């Protein structure tokens, strides 16, 4: 092994056999390891003990409303795309206790929950999901208020990204400018390369911590042909996107089409099941639940994921503001693609395709945009691109 100076932006080669050493190095530093693993017929994100827990030799097939696991015979470790889980499961968990209160003699005291200091390493984060994390950072860290719990989880996270070596049937990161190559927001980014006799990773250093960890593993300087193989891998993926979305003036397009007949059409299919919001890596909405013990002296407040597809979500005394599936689907999609831009200076959609795959009736956000773009209601709408949404 040749010793090289590992600095941010440098590329090295890590052999497949050394993957376990990456896990060990992270564990040694006190990181809990989470990453993809096979469970209940899908690739989910969960705690991992070692690299053996990764979905080695598995891939997925995704279509609108369909997800299927398939085995593959090349031993690829990261040969699949985004599954039903996203990293928000860990960074913005589905249920969090915010505080507890105890009552005595009519008065009560509130005990605030301490931010979670558990160090967590996220293994195999794809570029779309890195962007999704950056989107949630804007929501919870960059506004007038800051969420200290989210902040603690983010500050204690290590991210090992994976550049996608194949595109899923519902992926459209290229349209959203979010992939398939990880550009920033990682400590280490790996590209998996399988050649006839070799199986290795090209590892890019993203942070000092990433460099330190890599330095502890057997690695060597990347050779020209290896770097070229990595570049070609992501270039091929970019060519194979399952979906596309024309995002030209998309904010204006949706703002001008609040009353488009397409909303009625999609509402006729939407079950308002909320699956799309649960699987979406950027959806951040929550509700709170206040509970007490049987004696009524101990109370707790829990924050839980919520969805704009429920009727209660917009309830105010007298009735729900969004009483119909039409207004709820419109709220969701217009939020993702238009109001989000005004709120946080970024799209709320990173093109991961999860909402398409996990919609029980296969409603496809790219298709919905296309339908509105093809026949915009307002003359000011900008119907650019051909019938397939290509520009």
């Amino acid at each position, binding site marked *: 092994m040749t010793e090289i100076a590992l600095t941010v932006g440098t590329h090295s080669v890590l052999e497949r056999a050394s993957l376990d050493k990456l896990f060990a190095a992270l564990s040694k530093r006190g990181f809990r390891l989470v990453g993809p693993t096979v469970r209940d017929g899908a690739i989910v994100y969960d705690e991992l003990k070692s690299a053996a827990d990764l979905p080695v030799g598995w891939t997925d097939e995704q279509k609108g409303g369909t997800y299927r696991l398939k085995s593959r015979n090349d031993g690829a470790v990261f040969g699949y795309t985004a599954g039903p889980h996203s990293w928000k499961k860990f960074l913005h968990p589905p249920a969090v206790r915010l505080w507890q209160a105890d009552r005595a003699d009519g008065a009560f005291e*509130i005990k605030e929950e301490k931010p979670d200091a558990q160090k967590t390493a996220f293994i195999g984060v794809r570029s779309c999901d890195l962007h999704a994390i950056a989107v949630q950072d804007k929501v919870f860290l960059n506004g007038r208020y800051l*969420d200290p719990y989210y902040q603690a989880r983010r500050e204690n996270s290590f991210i090992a990204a994976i550049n996608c070596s194949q595109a899923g049937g519902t992926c459209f990161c290229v349209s959203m400018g979010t992939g398939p190559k990880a550009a920033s927001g990682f400590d280490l980014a790996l590209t998996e390369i399988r050649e006839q006799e070799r199986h290795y990773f090209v590892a890019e250093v993203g942070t000092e911590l990433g460099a330190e960890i890599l330095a502890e593993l057997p690695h060597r300087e990347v050779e020209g042909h290896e770097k070229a193989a990595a570049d070609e891998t992501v270039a091929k993926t970019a060519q194979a996107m399952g979906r596309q979305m024309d995002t030209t003036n998309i904010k204006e397009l949706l703002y001008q089409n609040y009353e488009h007949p397409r909303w009625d059409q999609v509402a006729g299919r939407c079950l308002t099941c909320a699956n799309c919001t649960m699987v979406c890596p950027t959806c951040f909405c929550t509700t709170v639940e206040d509970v007490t013990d049987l004696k009524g002296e101990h109370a707790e407040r829990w924050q839980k994921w919520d969805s704009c597809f429920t009727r209660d979500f917009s309830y105010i005394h007298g009735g729900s503001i969004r009483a119909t599936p039409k207004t709820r689907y419109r709220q969701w999609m217009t939020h993702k693609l238009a109001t989000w831009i005004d709120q946080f200076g970024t799209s709320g959609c990173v093109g991961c395709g999860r909402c398409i795959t996990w919609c029980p009736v296969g409603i496809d956000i790219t298709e919905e945009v296309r339908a509105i773009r093809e026949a915009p209601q307002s003359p000011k709408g900008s119907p650019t691109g051909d019938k397939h949404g290509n520009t």
Partner: protein
Amino acid sequence: MVPRPHTVRRVWQETHDTFTLELAPAAGDGAAPSSFAPGQFNMLYAFGVGEAAISISGDPARPERLVHTIRAVGATTKALARLRRGDTVGIRGPFGSQWPLGEAAGRDIVIIAGGIGLAPLRPVVYHVLQNRQNYGNVVLLYGARSPGDLLYAKELEQWRGRFDLEVQVAVDRAPATWRGTVGVVTNFIPRARFDPSEAVAMICGPEIMMRFAVQGIEELEMKSESIYISMERNMKCAVGFCGHCQFGPAFICKDGPVFSYESVRALLNIRGI
């Protein structure tokens, strides 16, 4: 993010379903009472039941007397209605934007309130009366369902008696003994004494009433940038994280609740947004 315990100092029943709480930080809390701007709200926590967004209805010059006027409509507000002197309530806030009192300096002010909508506007009245020389003509138009639903009846009577404030009150329906006006509050707009080309309007009430009020004011050719309304949406966190209070691109909790009509005009015309 965590409520601060406050002690109930006094409770008044305003109407059959609406009451006012006066609160102070609980003993041992140490921290000074938060100052607030007219139009802002707090989240009030009833132990074990939940939180509700409630406007601050007291005098902004006396923040140590934290005052909230609450209509009991559901689980949390009914639990708040059971509070008595000495009980504890949790408070987070104050949150949100404020009525444009700075912008209104030197100009006429027309305040239009419907029902509980007078609560977030009462701090404006207090402020204006304490700084009366800073403003032109001031008009308060207030509507409620019935005479028994009028908030702050005694204060309304006092305000009516002032020569430097025009107060007009209307109710939707009334028994024969009611000597005041029956009808919609917006009927007062054309006759009220203010200069539409110069005035600032501050409106709070049911959305439908606010729509009519804006319409009435616009007919006088008042500039839409000079019209302000206070919006209401379901609210859980009050700090822009829970997503519930979205109104198009705006979060009612941090961009509102007070908006210039100009900034939300397009959204108000879309149903179910």
